[in-house]
């Protein structure tokens, strides 16, 4: 196993300053994003807590929360990881370090910060995972193009003969996000209601399936063998999983609008794809966990532990997704807090744990960087505890709401019944924010000297 304090792999190809810049930006924007989420959560428990300021009203915070997580936290962390992984997989430097600073600047100062500010100022679009206004989309697309220019050429320089599976996921994510993003952000503005919803459904799932998931899996496929020092269990399975994923994920879209006026055959198709996706995820996760065998159920290396936990959560959230796409279940739990629990299990569970693991892994390998493993252990437990309490709490809340909606009870009864659960959910901010502070501390402080010696 890799000893974090040892000077392993100084990686002369890696632009470590960009890893650090995006890593720090990821965690700082994460703090802001969870603060948005916390105040929004608190407002459900105590609606007048923010005192009638438009800047702090629930809708705007809700937009900024998820956009911040997507672009600020996950986006920056992915970029940090790409600067570490792409040269190591391809054996070549990224296109240009200078370009890297441009991308960093665009991503944070032309997308995340102005996006947040514009949403708070009342400029946004009411489309899920596309809330930043259209003007920001232009910079997102520009940054995505530049990211493709930055990270793809190293893969193609020597041909793709020996391309490792993480490389495939990275190529897939960078290319298909570039296709899917404009579709999800623009088409619903141009076509009427129900037709726009069909395209929104596609993008809602593509944001998760073509951007977040492939890059998170690229991290998992990278970190597990690198940290255990053993090869991946089956390259065949990893390629099979990759192609099935890119085949099935985009076909899930309409499962966000089951029982709607969108033609039933599209709904059935999406539900079928959602079911099959569950099988694909079993295959991918089995391959990953078999690769992690030997490091035990509970790896000591913090990066590896975050990643394997993220992998397990990926399995759980995907099986849940396959189930809740089924009409019999969707009919009840759709629109309820059950789904909010599901999305937190995906984003705060699978994506965040994997991405944090990738970040820690890359960080350990920056020569001379500060690193504090006990702090990261603390972060792990606080985050896992907070996530599980939130997930169970929201799932129960969703079942209670579903039950009341199905009964003859007045609508407001479902709101009353949910409030204690909303309060508990708001309180999970405590372990989660402390956990992220510990993560930040783990990457910015050193061990006390006597231990480090």
């Amino acid at each position, binding site marked *: 196993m890799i000893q974090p304090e040892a000077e392993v792999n100084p990686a002369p190809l890696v632009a470590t300053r960009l890893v650090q810049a995006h890593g720090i930006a990821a965690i700082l924007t994460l703090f802001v994003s969870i603060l948005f989420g916390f105040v929004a959560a608190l*407002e459900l428990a105590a609606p007048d807590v923010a005192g009638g300021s438009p800047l702090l*009203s629930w809708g705007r915070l*809700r937009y900024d929360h998820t956009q911040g997580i997507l672009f600020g936290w996950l986006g920056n962390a992915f970029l940090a990881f790409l600067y570490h992984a792409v040269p190591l997989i391809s054996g070549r430097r990224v296109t240009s370090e200078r370009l890297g600073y441009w991308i960093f600047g665009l991503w944070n100062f032309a997308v995340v910060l102005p996006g947040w500010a514009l949403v708070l100022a009342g400029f946004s*679009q*009411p489309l899920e995972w596309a809330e930043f206004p259209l003007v920001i989309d232009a910079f997102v697309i520009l940054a995505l193009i530049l990211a493709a220019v930055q990270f793809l050429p190293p893969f193609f320089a020597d041909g793709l*003969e020996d391309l490792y599976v993480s490389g495939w996921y990275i190529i897939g994510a960078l290319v298909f996000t570039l296709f899917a993003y404009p579709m999800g952000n623009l088409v619903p503005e141009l076509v*009427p209601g129900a037709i726009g919803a*069909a395209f929104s459904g596609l993008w809602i799932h593509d944001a998760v399936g073509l951007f977040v998931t492939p890059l998170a899996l690229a991290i998992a496929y990278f970190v597990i063998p690198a940290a255990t020092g053993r090869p991946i269990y089956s390259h065949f399975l990893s390629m099979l999983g990759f192609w099935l994923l890119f085949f099935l994920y985009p076909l899930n*879209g309409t499962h966000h609008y089951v029982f709607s*006026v969108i033609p039933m055959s599209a709904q059935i198709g999406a539900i079928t794809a959602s079911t099959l996706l569950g099988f694909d995820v079993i295959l991918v996760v089995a391959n990953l966990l078999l690769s992690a065998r030997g490091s035990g159920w509970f790896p000591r290396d913090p990066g590896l532990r975050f990643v394997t936990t993220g992998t397990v959560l990926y399995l759980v959230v995907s099986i849940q997704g396959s189930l809740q796409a089924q009409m019999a279940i969707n009919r009840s739990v759709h629109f309820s807090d059950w789904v909010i629990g599901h999305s937190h299990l995906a984003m705060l569970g699978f994506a965040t744990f994997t991405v944090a693991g990738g970040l820690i892994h890359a960080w350990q390998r920056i020569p001379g960087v500060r690193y504090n493993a006990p702090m990261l252990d603390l972060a792990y437990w606080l985050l896992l505890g907070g996530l599980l309490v939130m997930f169970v709490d929201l799932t129960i809340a969703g079942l209670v709401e579903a039950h009341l909606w199905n009964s003859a009870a007045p609508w407001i009864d479902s709101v009353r019944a949910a409030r204690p659960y909303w309060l508990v959910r708001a309180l999970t901010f405590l372990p989660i924010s402390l956990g992220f502070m510990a993560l930040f501390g783990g990457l910015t402080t050193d061990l006390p000297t006597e231990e480090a010696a």
Partner: protein
Amino acid sequence: MKRFLRMSYLAASIGGVMFFAMSVVLLGVWPGRTLDHDIHAMSPPHPMDLTASEQHGRTIYSREGCAYCHTEQIRYIESDTRRFGAATLAWETRFDYPHLWGTRRIGPDLSREGAVRSNDWQLTHLYQPREVVADSVMPAYDWLFDGAPDRPKQDALDVLAYLETLGRNRALAGAEGDAHARAACDCSEDEKRFGFSKPLNASPAMAQRGPVPALTISNDLAPGRAVYASNCASCHEGSAPGLRPKPANLAAHQYTMAALSDALWNGRAGTSMPAWRDLSLADLSAVAAAVREKSQPQTDSIADQLGERIYKSNCAQCHGERGAGDGSAASQFTIAPVNFVQQRASLEYAQNAIKNGIDGSPMAAWKTRLTDEEIAAVARYVRAFYQP
């Protein structure tokens, strides 16, 4: 070998792009074509687009994230259609750029909100939801107002205008429009059942007139007090300054069981009093008992000839010869004239109402036309109609 690999990667890459294209075609373009066809085939000939004010209201609604708690999409299932009305047809969304379907419901669906509530109620609710719905968790949008719910800025009026468009086109299309859409719909029996064979608007709060189930008087007041506290007190006990006419002063009135049944079951058309059909009959009976508990013991009044003369020449046209709210002019008012047979105000309240009128209702102020003595006589006269 190397060439073979290159070729297979090329094939794989083309395959990958094809997968994505397939998803867009299968789940976007193709259903979009079907929907586009349905919209044109099923839409009534001239549906109303949004006015500038309504469009601006929609923009505010969008930027505040309203659609993230209130869906605008009634699904083709029993639990949705029972609560909100007939399922959403594609043509109803034809002016929605972008759509506001939503994927989360914290508050109720608003697809058919247009006809449900009075403007006062909507504005007050927008200003401070908890003034009319005690347990609401909706944010207060008081910055759309000049410090009071009855002083909306243009923004608030625009949001109100937008809310009033929700369900408007389908309501205007009427039974004839639905018949046309149904005939043009290439859809399954299930879709027809949920899309057409349900009331257009199933909101239990929409005020209407019609038969009323009998409520039973219960002696146990505790449950009624609880129902009253969580559903009625915010308006009837609070200040609710934006509501015109003011919510009834329940302590200053006596009501027969019939009056309470009617008000609770049908609401009060033209006022902010919604129907409470989502409460069980047991709860309605209990809350009726709690309301009757609030009425202070009322003294009887004796009618005299002065009162009779003034009533018959000034009041009977609306309130009816026998005070039953059924005068010849009664039907032309959205807000029905008070039925004195079923409710009796305190003498003081009655005199005040005659003197100053009821703000927000057709009841005029009579203080310039009647002397104090005459007003007192009419007040005694109308109070004598009451039959407990």
